[in-house]
């Protein structure tokens, strides 16, 4: 089944993620983020573009509290996560799924254990049969049931991405953060992953931020795009609008 974008977003939707004036530097003179601001509305797929090293990964790491920003506010579900303590942060984290650039599967655990690991810790009311069922369900939805008893080292790059995605989805997050979901994959697998991202958006009604260098993926999945440059948002708009932008630098992404 071919899915198409859901362009009919209610415009009055309040932003579910709202980043304002974010600053982050490493050492004295590596200023990565210099007042980054953007927002994401509920149910929206926001694609973040930008050259390598422009601070895309840093921005979403600040968003889940893996990194502390130097300055600025990050509102998620109406709470400023830069001011939350560990417990408050963990409550928010449970509602956010994070797909790492390289999958970050737990090497020492099989696929089954990778998936049941977060589930067992956060839904302690489930019995083993229910956990197993949830694991199989989620693997089915990413199309990888046959890999359930494999170790991560036995999986291909694309399979790892899918398992990583399944592991993020198993806690039913409301927000999904994808860090380069299609990088390193062939065109066909990339397209499948992009389809998967769309189908997840529609099936689970999630809000997503998708960092990518893959324009096909951006075209397929984006409701809106922001382009980072010099630590701030340089351009913003729909895929079509940016593709026909007057700014040559912006257009250069789309060639």
């Amino acid at each position, binding site marked *: 089944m071919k899915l198409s974008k859901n362009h009919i977003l209610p415009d009055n939707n309040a932003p579910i993620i709202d980043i304002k004036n974010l600053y982050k530097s490493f050492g004295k003179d590596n200023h990565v983020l210099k007042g980054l601001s953007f927002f994401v509305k509920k149910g929206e797929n926001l694609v973040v573009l930008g050259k390598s090293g422009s601070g895309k990964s840093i921005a979403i*790491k600040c968003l*889940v509290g*893996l990194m502390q920003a130097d300055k600025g506010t990050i509102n998620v579900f109406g709470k400023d996560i830069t001011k939350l303590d560990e417990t408050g942060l*963990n*409550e928010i*984290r*449970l509602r*956010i799924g*994070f797909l*790492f*650039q*390289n999958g*970050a*599967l*737990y*090497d*020492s655990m099989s696929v089954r254990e990778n998936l049941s*690991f*977060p589930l067992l*810790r*956060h839904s302690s009311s489930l019995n083993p049969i229910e956990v197993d069922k949830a694991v199989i369900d989620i693997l089915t939805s990413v199309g990888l049931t046959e890999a359930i008893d494999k170790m991560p080292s036995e999986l291909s790059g694309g399979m790892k991405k899918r398992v990583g995605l399944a*592991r993020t989805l198993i*806690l039913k997050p409301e927000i999904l953060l994808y860090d380069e979901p299609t990088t390193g994959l062939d065109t066909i697998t990339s397209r499948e992953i992009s389809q998967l991202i769309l189908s997840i958006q529609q099936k689970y009604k999630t809000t997503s931020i998708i960092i990518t260098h893959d324009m096909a993926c951006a075209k397929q999945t984006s409701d809106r795009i922001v382009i980072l440059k010099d630590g701030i948002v340089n351009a913003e708009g729909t895929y079509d609008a940016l593709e026909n932008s007057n700014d040559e630098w912006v257009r250069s992404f789309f060639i």
Partner: protein
Amino acid sequence: MVIYLKSIFTDAGNLILFTTRFFREIVKPPFETHEFIKQCYVIGYKSFPLVAVTGFIMGLVLTLQSRPTLSKFGAESWLPGMVALSLIREIAPVITALICAGKVSSGIGAELGSMKVTEQIDAMEVSAINPFKYLVVTRILASTLMIPILVVFADAIGILGGYVGFNIHSDVNMVRYNAQVFESLDFIDIFPATIKTFFFGFSIGLIGCYKGFTASNGTESVGKAANSAVVLASLTIFIIDMLAVQITDLFF
């Protein structure tokens, strides 16, 4: 030189912070019992053959080396007691701890280091699982508990090795040999020696975890974490040993 000193002091400071974090997290539920038992198996059971072989050789060699000197004084009957004493007081704890610094500390350093580099630790954190509790607390506890047990094994196997060594030149049965061993042993030989092995175990786990958990990003830091874990853990073992001997000296 200044930079070198500075890095030593920051390292020491961070290690102290890491240790206080351990004591803070250890009392907070939930407890990762399953992972703790698994680590006991990995650290204890899997190091057993290595410790057994070294323990046996230590006992055997120590007996063979000491015999000529003792027989010069006609004191060969002291041999079993002397070997048992030096094994239990000093050699078995220190050698076992050093072996485990090589195996366990570097193993933990490399494992946690690669988990850090491949963002697995971050992945735990974003799924609201406390990686410090799951990875660090369990490993430090397991090694604190397992190293003393391994040392007791090494003691016993070392004494057995001593028996074999003793029997190369003379003929004594096991019962008499054991009687000679236990005759020479006192409470104060065993008690402080056992206490210090807990500290050995603690520092082996702590340093491995610290080096791995705080590894910087990049693949080469995994090797660095494993390597510096062994070096620092071995050094710490000698320092603890020295302190332990001084303290025992004061009180007994």
